[in-house]
């Protein structure tokens, strides 16, 4: 089987319970960055280790773009999800079918973000609204 093509390498991996985003923890001060960085903006540390971000976070902000942008199918929903335990805010695509409101519980999933002209699907992460008990 052909390998999946991702829009950006090193952002997502398959965890024990499903896909997770890969945070980048500074070995010196513990600050987690997403996406990966070469320099910690808090302490200027340059050594990092990968850590899994939690699968679920809270929706911080959202909007749905209705006019062409990149190769995304329309409508294209997007926004920020925060992971309070990891102290990280991540921007990303959302599911356009979800009725979104700040504070919603969101789960990271792996999905096709767009399809190239030659039919190649391009994969990445997408947040979906979930009911958390």
């Amino acid at each position, binding site marked *: 089987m052909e390998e999946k093509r991702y829009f*950006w390498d090193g952002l997502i991996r398959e965890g024990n319970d499903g896909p997770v985003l890969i945070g980048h923890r500074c070995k010196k001060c513990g600050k987690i960055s997403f996406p990966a960085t070469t320099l910690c903006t*808090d302490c200027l540390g340059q050594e990092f280790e990968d850590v899994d971000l939690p699968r679920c976070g809270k929706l911080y*902000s959202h*909007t749905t*773009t209705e006019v062409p942008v*990149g190769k995304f199918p329309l409508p*294209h929903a997007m926004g920020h999800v925060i992971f309070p335990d*990891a102290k990280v*805010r991540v921007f990303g*695509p959302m599911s356009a079918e979800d009725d979104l409101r700040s504070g919603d519980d969101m789960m990271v999933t792996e999905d096709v973000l767009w399809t190239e002209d030659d039919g190649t699907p391009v994969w990445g992460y997408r947040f979906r609204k979930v009911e958390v008990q």
Partner: protein
Amino acid sequence: MNGLRDVVVLGVGQTVFGKRRGVSPITMGVEAAKAAIEDVGPGFDPKSLECVYASRSRDDTQTAENIMQFLGIAGLEMHNTENACASGGGAVHLLWKDIAYGVHDIGIAIGTESMTSEKPGLIGVAGGDLADVLGFSMPALAGLCCNKLIEECGCTLEDIAYPSIKNHRNALLNPYAMYKKEITFEDVMRSKLISDPVRTLHCCPITDGAAAVILCTPEIARKYAHKLVKIATSKVLSAPFEKWNDDILDTQVMMDLAKACYDDSGFGPEDLDLIELHDAFACEEIYATRCLGLCKAGDEKKLIHDGVLERTGKHPMNVSGGLQSLGHPLGASGVRVVAEVASQLRGEAGQRQLENHPKVGLTQMIGGYLTGLTVPAVGSMQILTVE
């Protein structure tokens, strides 16, 4: 301020801001610079200029050198600046700094841009940035902020549309504006949905234009003018790094600029008789009120309903018609707002002149986006005052 020299506005000029397809940014820059030179008066020799700063956010090089050669001026120190929507504010700032620190006594800042010559589409963010690849755009940022205002500050769709409606009404008095037509809430809601809840009429139009200001020492200015408008302070900042729990409506770069400008000038938000700022999207005026200290977070809606930002209010905002009616030629807007506030403080703003004899005005331009920094990524601010 801290032993720096006073810097005053000697001349201002601008083109009409509108769709000028096929007219080059250089031609428009020449037009604005000539207007600023003529504004000084018949005895002024433009060859007395000592330095030139040109701002332009889109491609091409040597904009300053190219414009000035059509004015018969070469052989001076010239620079070209780019800083997204704050490009023009940066050109004014660098010129201000040269004069304040005694490097030069007189110079010109020119901002120019042709937006109609660009490929149509949403204004994006820095190419190659993660958000850029994920389809983020400036209208999407406005959409995120509008939904925050609605969900957390009690704003309605009417409140979100208000700055656009007000600024279109203000533009009826401005001969330089592209739009001179009143619009209603129904017009806004009938316009095309771009990035919910942002519609076309919440967004500034695509326009071309240029503006120029000549700054100098008070000693030079007194030869030409009786009423000296001083740039009491000028700042340019990049946004700080984003924290996971920042409030997106607390535009950090604007708050930092306002604090620095108030500290330096001794003026405070209560002193502002007019404000010209970046209203590329109508919602920006709403949360600018908290960032500039005009009200507390959460009180934005009350401020609007009390008419504080109207021409007749305590803090008139974008009496020119703002970017909502003039559009936003990226390199030009930051220079235009300084020209606009200077005209108002001199009492020479024609039909749109505020009647309450404004004494203190604030200009602001913010823009750009980079993953990792608070939004937007860069800003400029000046406080102007008249003797």
